[in-house]
């Protein structure tokens, strides 16, 4: 065993912190404070990505040949930790962590050349068109169809939970190209280079937190070029499974979770306890915060083992386990947030939450975000494969 960091890691850390302390604009910092979801405020996240890209740091995990910084896994973790300690808004994941890595692996040379540089530079945002009103956990039963016609596909049907589709300029999606054989067969993976094709309609859906983060997209004889296909026709299910690996695992969640714990601790220090002193001195609060801290620490250990190449990361259940742990921790943290703010969490502060809003927040930083963060985080056990589905997958690895 060897836990010692690379000799150069502290030098690297200094370089990172110097940049992170100076580069973000006030609006970007504000967006960080007002992030209540896995998706940070759109405009600021994209602006921040452009700044990071100028430094070469927009995509820490991308290989150097595609414009990544070429960092070691340990460097990536240090970057994530320092980033989160400053409460900076996360970059939007769909393009950088989903389409990008997928295209690197199985995109055509033309798709790579066209899209990867724009993804990296923050010039494109890709929304995901997977789920349909009738196809949620049972994604393979999707029915939105694409019929080949000349060089095009003609798409009919609808997609739902297309995150930020109303802000996106591109879309990746699964369509049904055949109804023969098993339902997993007959699915094709398509890239749409526009979201304003004739016949496309985007309807934002307001969430529990009052924000239109999700959308529904309707397709009525929408004609798109076949060149947007990734992989073979009717082979989209395996393309999507490949992509899901990127979505479910592989990232460093624990630094963000640690930062949420620190945020709660800070707020507790400013919150009077009905039993005297501040909430931070309250033994019950300390116990409950200690319990979250222990579980976040274990998640950090798990992530670091995986980063170090420990066999745990080769377990076929690894992505599901990662998703289960981080989603449920996020929810538990959100519950403690609402407890700490108490009554101060009750005003609907939807207006004040917009970056640049001139509505003054009521209560402290945590009061502003606790309730929307709690409500939004209910989705973490639903999206990207419900936690029920993830548990099914983990259990499958235990069957003799």
């Amino acid at each position, binding site marked *: 065993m060897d836990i010692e960091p690379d000799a150069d890691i502290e030098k690297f850390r200094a370089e990172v912190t110097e940049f992170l302390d100076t580069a973000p604009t006030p609006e970007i910092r504000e967006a960080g404070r007002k992030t209540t979801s896995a998706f940070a405020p759109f405009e600021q996240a994209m602006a921040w990505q452009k700044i990071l890209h100028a430094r070469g740091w927009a995509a820490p995990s991308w290989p150097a040949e595609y414009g990544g910084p070429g960092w070691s896994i340990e460097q990536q973790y240090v970057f994530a930790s320092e980033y989160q300690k400053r409460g900076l808004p996360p970059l939007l994941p769909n393009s950088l962590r989903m389409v990008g890595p997928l295209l690197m692996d199985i995109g055509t040379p033309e798709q790579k050349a066209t899209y990867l540089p724009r993804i990296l530079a923050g010039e494109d945002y890709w929304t995901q068109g997977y789920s349909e009103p009738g196809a949620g*956990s049972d994604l393979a039963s999707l029915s939105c169809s694409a019929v080949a016609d000349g060089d095009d596909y003609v798409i009919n049907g609808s997609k739902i939970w297309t995150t930020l589709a109303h802000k996106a300029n591109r879309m990746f999606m699964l369509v049904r190209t055949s109804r023969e054989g098993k339902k997993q067969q007959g699915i094709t993976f398509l890239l749409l280079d526009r979201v304003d094709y004739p016949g496309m309609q985007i309807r934002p859906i307001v969430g529990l937190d009052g924000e239109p983060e999700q959308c529904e997209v309707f397709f009525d004889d929408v004609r798109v070029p076949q060149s947007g296909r990734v992989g073979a026709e009717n082979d989209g299910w395996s393309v999507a499974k490949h992509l899901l690996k990127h979505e479910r695992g592989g990232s460093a969640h624990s630094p963000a979770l640690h930062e949420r714990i620190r945020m709660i601790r800070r707020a507790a220090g400013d919150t009077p*306890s009905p039993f005297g002193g501040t909430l931070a001195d309250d033994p019950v609060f300390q116990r409950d915060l200690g319990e979250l801290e222990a579980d976040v620490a274990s998640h950090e250990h798990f992530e670091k083992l995986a980063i170090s190449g420990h066999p745990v990361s080769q377990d076929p259940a690894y992505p599901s386990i990662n998703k289960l742990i981080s989603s449920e921790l996020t929810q538990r943290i959100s519950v403690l947030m609402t407890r700490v703010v108490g*009554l101060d969490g009750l005003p609907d*502060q939807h207006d004040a939450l917009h970056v640049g809003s001139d509505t003054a927040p009521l209560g402290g930083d945590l009061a502003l975000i606790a*309730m929307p963060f709690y409500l939004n985080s209910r989705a973490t056990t639903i999206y990207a494969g*419900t936690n029920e589905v993830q548990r099914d997958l983990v259990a499958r690895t235990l069957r003799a």
Partner: protein
Amino acid sequence: MDFTFSDEQTLMRDSVSRYLQRDYGFDARQAIVGSAKGWSSDVWARLGEMGLLAAPFPEEVGGLGGSIVDVVAITEVLGAHLVAEPYIGSVVMAGGALAAAPDGTVSAGWLERVVAGEAIGAFAHEEGPGTPDPALVATRAERTAAGGFALTGEKKVVLHGADADVLVVSARLAGEPGDAGGLGLFAVERGTAGLTVTPFTTVDGRRAAHVRFERAEVAADALLAPEAHDLVQRVVARSIVALAAEAVGAMGELLGRTAEYASAREQFGVPIASFQAVAHRLADMKVAHIKARATLLYTTALAEAGRARPHDIAVLKVQAGRLGRTIGESAIQTHGGVGMTDELPIGHLVKRILASEAMFGGTEYHLRTLGAGL
């Protein structure tokens, strides 16, 4: 022992339910909540006509002579329908406080107007997580040279605090936070100088306000009760019971809607209720609802008999909060994506439960007082 509603109460529940189903469907409710006023005078008038406002008050003030049992019978139904109108704030809380004040004060006049639906009242009491214990009130009432009082302090999440014609305010005439003695109860009219009202909509669609008093002066007869600790404690208990009844109503609605959805929604070619993980979650929701409702009904019967101790009220408060959260979170998870939207009542019902949990002392506060008292 009998823990059922009377025939009259059941009739009233049925007619209120029918009315709300017809005229207060989810879309109508959302339109009302999204309006400038945030609630509907028409609906309010209709509830008044049906006798809801008068139900729990004595006949002398225009009431129907009912009790806390009527309040619970009514608010459970209102909770299921997510009613935004000021029933709890004006009738249960402010009305309850006015009715509890001694005779011979201005309370009777205000009470008659509240009972008749001619005035809206608000109960301005909470200051933070500790004020379910009235002794912790810090807002002060100092005697003025004119013989009246000047109030200074801040009250949080006063339901309908900006709409109200009269605020019923707890404030300290003497002593320090922690003292049971010296607590007064005041009637403060809308527009009194020195009041800063910061209105907002709560996450669950009620209108409310933080109310700051900066030497807000009131006349001598605004003092409804000079040693009001026990009175305020009873009003807090009554508020907790009514909020719990609303929450239990919301829980029942969540249970019913979720069971129905899980039976109808198909994935993998079968209703999702046929997956054991979903079935067991539904079972746990049902158990939680039965527990919460049993405690609600039992505590209501205790309260009617004048036998509800602080211990019993704390049990009801924590159960409505904890079990409500269980049911709410399970309802969203079972609905999946559509449960995360503002377009179904599911999330709104959950938010109503969460908001009630935070009022009059959170779950942790009451759990601890419970355990310490054993």
